[in-house]
């Protein structure tokens, strides 16, 4: 997924546009909190080069990480765009549990009022593993306002204060605007898989990284998953058998944060669907015996790091990395609210399980703590499991780390090499 939101272009271009907008007196939106979303050209180009597309899946991820979708005929989506509007839906759609609306008297949970799915057109990709009739677009959940004619006929200003995707984008923007930093994120997605039909092949012993274990039935399935994802722009680096019952792991490539979390969503759902098609039940369960985690690798890199030589890049990272880590550790307990929202999640924070350990700590190549330092400015955050609201977790990690950099927070926890 080639993600280029308007605000990720050079700052000068953005300021020019802001200046232009401010000249238009009737505009009453708040510039500080609004975002200009475009990408319509990417959309039209995609449709022109993929003539077989007939449906557009508008996807969003709610607070409990349920992926929801509205499937529109391409014709209908095009007519909405032409009319200068977006797909409206009830504003409680971030707050549902399955089909039920819990009774809460809080925005956006109230069942009255509208929100819109604002397509992030830059995320458009073919539905993995289908014949090309379906395209998928990740959306913001909020409302959009057209810009005045003469500036752009397709761009919108977005207001989405409740949208998890928007919160992550705000964190990315803060890194760029305030710190000249950007970030890369990659995931180690663990799940369990059990054959259910038609006739299970003879079992093999499940061994960590075992050849026979992966050959038993998952090798062709995971190969198909990887190929399907690659065609949709999601890159898997490797897969293998994990070290607990029936467990496997897929590793996603390090990408800018929003693209990375979108890719995780696509990878998880594609794995689930491909397993189901092959008579395999896939599940993510944080407690024993499976103990499936979702380790999240986060790295800090200078903005536009292709312009830096290796030495200059090292200097930038060296300057911020301790403060960034200190900031993350200072908020790690609170971040567990996004990373581990279920009681079952806390089976992974007991001592001696090679998961996340009991204490707020970190260690170079230490797999018995919540943070494993892998390289300068690169940490594996070991607390999340698949129940995490990953847009909010990554947003929180970036905000916490940047707060450490802003305050120059001292790292008071030493590099831990043992377990507690």
């Amino acid at each position, binding site marked *: 997924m080639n993600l280029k939101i308007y605000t990720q272009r050079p700052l000068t271009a953005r300021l020019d546009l802001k200046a232009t907008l401010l000249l238009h007196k009737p505009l009453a939106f708040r510039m500080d909190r609004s975002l200009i979303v475009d990408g319509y050209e990417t959309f039209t180009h995609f449709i022109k080069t993929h003539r077989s597309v007939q449906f557009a899946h508008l996807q969003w991820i709610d607070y409990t990480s349920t992926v929801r979708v509205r499937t529109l005929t391409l014709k209908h989506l095009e007519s909405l765009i032409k009319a200068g509007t977006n797909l409206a839906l009830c504003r409680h759609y971030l707050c549902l*549990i399955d089909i039920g609306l819990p009774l809460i008297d809080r*925005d956006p949970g109230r069942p009255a009022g509208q929100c819109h799915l604002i397509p992030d057109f830059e995320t458009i990709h073919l539905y993995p593993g289908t014949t090309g009739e379906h395209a998928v677009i990740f959306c913001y959940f909020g409302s959009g306002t057209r810009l005045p004619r003469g500036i752009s006929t397709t761009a919108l200003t977005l207001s989405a204060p409740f949208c998890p995707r928007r*919160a992550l984008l705000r964190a990315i923007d803060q890194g760029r605007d305030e710190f000249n930093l950007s970030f890369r994120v990659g995931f180690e997605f663990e799940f369990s898989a059990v054959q259910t039909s038609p006739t299970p092949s003879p079992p093999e012993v499940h061994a960590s990284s075992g050849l026979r274990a992966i050959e038993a039935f998952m090798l062709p399935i995971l190969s198909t998953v990887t190929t399907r994802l690659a065609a949709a722009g999601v890159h898997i680096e490797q897969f293998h058998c994990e070290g607990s019952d029936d467990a496997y792991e897929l590793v996603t490539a390090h990408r800018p944060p929003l693209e990375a979390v979108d890719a995780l969503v696509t990878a998880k759902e594609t794995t689930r669907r491909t397993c189901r098609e092959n008579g395999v039940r896939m599940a993510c369960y944080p407690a024993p015996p499976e103990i499936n985690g979702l380790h999240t690798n986060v790295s800090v890199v200078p903005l536009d790091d292709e312009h830096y030589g290796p030495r200059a890049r090292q200097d930038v990272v060296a300057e911020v990395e301790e403060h960034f880590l200190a900031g993350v550790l200072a908020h790690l307990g*609170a971040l567990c609210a996004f990373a581990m929202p279920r009681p*079952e999640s806390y089976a992974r924070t007991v001592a001696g399980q090679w998961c996340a350990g009991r*204490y707020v700590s970190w260690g170079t190549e230490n797999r018995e703590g919540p943070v494993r330092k892998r390289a300068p400015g690169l940490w594996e955050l070991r607390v999340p499991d698949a129940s995490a609201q990953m847009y909010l977790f990554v947003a929180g990690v970036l905000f916490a780390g940047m707060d450490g950099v802003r305050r120059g927070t001292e790292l008071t926890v030493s590099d*831990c090499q043992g377990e507690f």
Partner: protein
Amino acid sequence: MLTEAERLELGVTQELPLNPDEAFQALLTDELLMESIGEDLVRTYVTIQELYNKKLAEAGPEGSAERKAWLTARI
């Protein structure tokens, strides 16, 4: 295993939350995250997660097959 004295020497003093409620309380009292992510978003998020965990509890006691089936159908 490191001893308590060794742990304190490393500056490791804070425990991770033991359950979702402790984590939600930590989040709701975290000024930086409340402000950066948005107080309304965070409060709504926590409310929904608490209601979700209540439904999960209704599915069965922790570790039961019924509850595991409910959860793994959704995660």
